[in-house]
């Protein structure tokens, strides 16, 4: 572990100082590894406990209850929560809301990100300022007036459009796209211009294929928000048939469902159903959270 010399430094002669450093280095590495391990443990323990708690027949908060005891395991909690809230219907509502938000975010964000990074036009500074402004001002300032507008004036309560509307623009996505387009060397676009491509053609045939990794990143980043969002859909949906899972689960846990055999277990079972899609998607695509190597665009 201590001998991970990079190719660049491998050729240079090592000083004696560096050799004597190695023992301390090993200790430091072990300490570092321990700290990282503790961090991972603390990050993951609640998830382990979420699953164990969701599978418990009877609520067991003893220290032994941390283990999945075979005698106390059941899937009844999932059936229980499903009898109170329509899990499938809620999941579908979550999915529709999320798909709407991600779709709007990607299309609008890609267009603005491209315009801001590659083109130059009058009002560009203003548009960028708007992007940052949207990012900087908390949603809470808009919460009450938006609620009044969407529910009272637009009549969009209990509708997908009403849930999606405030999240259709996402500054993070714009900044991701802008950043990716800025990373692409100007020469790529200039080369296309010299070849006589129109600006629109450059966007469709050169820019969009190049930022495919950014599309994925923006998708993953924006998927999390609406899927997990509680406050806004909670405000605009009163009809249980329209509520996304986060809202119906929160209402279920607030309702103190004592008629359930294991109320806490039922809530945790619902929590698993809400958490698993986001976590699985993240696990599948986590390597895309690193920035892609765009240098290849100029080769050849």
């Amino acid at each position, binding site marked *: 572990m201590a001998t991970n010399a990079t190719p660049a*430094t491998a050729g240079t002669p090592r000083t004696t100082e560096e050799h004597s450093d190695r023992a301390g280095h090993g200790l430091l590495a072990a300490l570092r590894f321990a700290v*990282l391990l503790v*961090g991972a443990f603390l990050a993951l323990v609640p998830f382990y*406990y979420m699953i164990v708690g969701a599978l418990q027949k009877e609520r067991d908060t003893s220290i032994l209850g941390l283990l999945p005891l075979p005698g106390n395991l059941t899937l009844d909690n999932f059936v229980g929560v499903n009898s109170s809230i329509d899990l499938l219907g809620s999941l579908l509502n979550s999915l529709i809301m999320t798909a709407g938000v991600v779709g709007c975010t990607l299309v609008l*964000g890609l267009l603005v990100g491209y*315009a801001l990074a590659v*083109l130059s*036009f009058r009002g560009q500074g203003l548009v960028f300022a708007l992007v940052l402004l949207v990012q900087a001002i908390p949603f809470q300032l808009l919460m009450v007036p938006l609620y009044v507008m969407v529910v009272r004036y637009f009549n969009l309560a209990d509708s997908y459009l009403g849930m999606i509307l405030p999240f259709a623009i996402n500054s993070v996505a714009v900044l991701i796209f802008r950043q990716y387009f800025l990373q692409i060397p100007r020469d790529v676009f*200039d080369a296309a211009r010299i070849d006589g491509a129109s600006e629109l053609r450059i966007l469709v045939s050169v820019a969009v294929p190049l930022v495919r990794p950014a599309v994925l990143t923006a998708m993953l980043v924006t998927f999390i928000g609406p899927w997990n969002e509680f*406050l806004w859909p909670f405000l605009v949906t009163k009809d249980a048939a329209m509520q996304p899972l986060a809202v119906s689960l929160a209402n279920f846990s607030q309702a103190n469902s004592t008629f359930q055999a294991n109320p806490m277990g039922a809530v945790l079972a619902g929590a698993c159903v809400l958490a698993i899609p986001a976590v699985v998607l993240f696990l599948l695509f986590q390597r895309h959270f690193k920035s892609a190597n765009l240098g290849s665009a100029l080769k050849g």
Partner: protein
Amino acid sequence: MTTLRDAESRSKGWGTARSAPPPGRGDRRPTQRRRRLQRILGEHPLGLLLSAPYTAFVVIVFLVPFGFGVWMAFHDFFFTAPGVAVPHPFVGLDNFRQVVDDASVRQAFGNLLVFLVVNLPLTVVLALLLATGLDAVVHWKGFFRVSYYIPYVTASVATLAVWIFMFNGNGVVNRLLGDLAPDPTWLANQHLIMPLIAVYVTWKNLGFYVLLFLAGLQAVPQELHEAAKVDGAGAWRRFRTVTLPGVRPVTSLVVLLSIIMTGQIFTEPYLLTGGGPNGASMTPALLMYQKGIQQGKPDVAAAIGMILVLAVMILSLVSRRLTERRS
């Protein structure tokens, strides 16, 4: 401004190629029209078209509600049956006066300060610690990165359910603590509930900040570390003199984002305690919901919102001063 930009665009690549030889009679007029259009709209008028839908959305779901909210805060606004026109008289600072005089509002803002005192140092120190470790570690790097990020991608509603399970009266945390368990227990203890929420939020968002710090660490030039090593600086010295100054912009950003996030705390107190005990975990955002939507006083809620944003802005500016000047 126009001439400056023109000169700039002419000096750029294809602009020079087109303008250097005088164009033939045939294509002179379209070129001129295009020039004039470009002088008004900029080099690429397409940019305006591409920005239009986004800008329209910003106006509808952001600027209009923003203006509406400000208007509301200075008027007597209340909900009426649809289609009924009622006057909403201008009341000046009445709503604000009502807010400032309200002890529960002052308490809610005080709670945010308690939150920040716990959350900010914890977030910065732990995120930097884990990112530094992650930057240097060889094995299991991907596993660590993913582990830290998982709480961040999981819904608050789901993770809060587990935290309630763990921290309520006879939960596993109190079982582990035995006689050391606090009395009254975590969720019912007015001195512990806000710090607990701060720890929860730190846990939830830490992975995101670790990634930010990791990107910042990787941007610190390796040569600086090598040079410091050659000069005989130990690991701690290098961390203080090379790493810390190198990640200062990220630290500044992390502090800023944490402060902005603090203003938005709603779900945690709503699900954990409903704002109790005795308002000890009430936050301005939750208060806005209760007053504005449950009690039908959106004008008062809008006033709280304006004060909240002002407070967040002032804190952000102060934090920027502090984090960027320290050297």
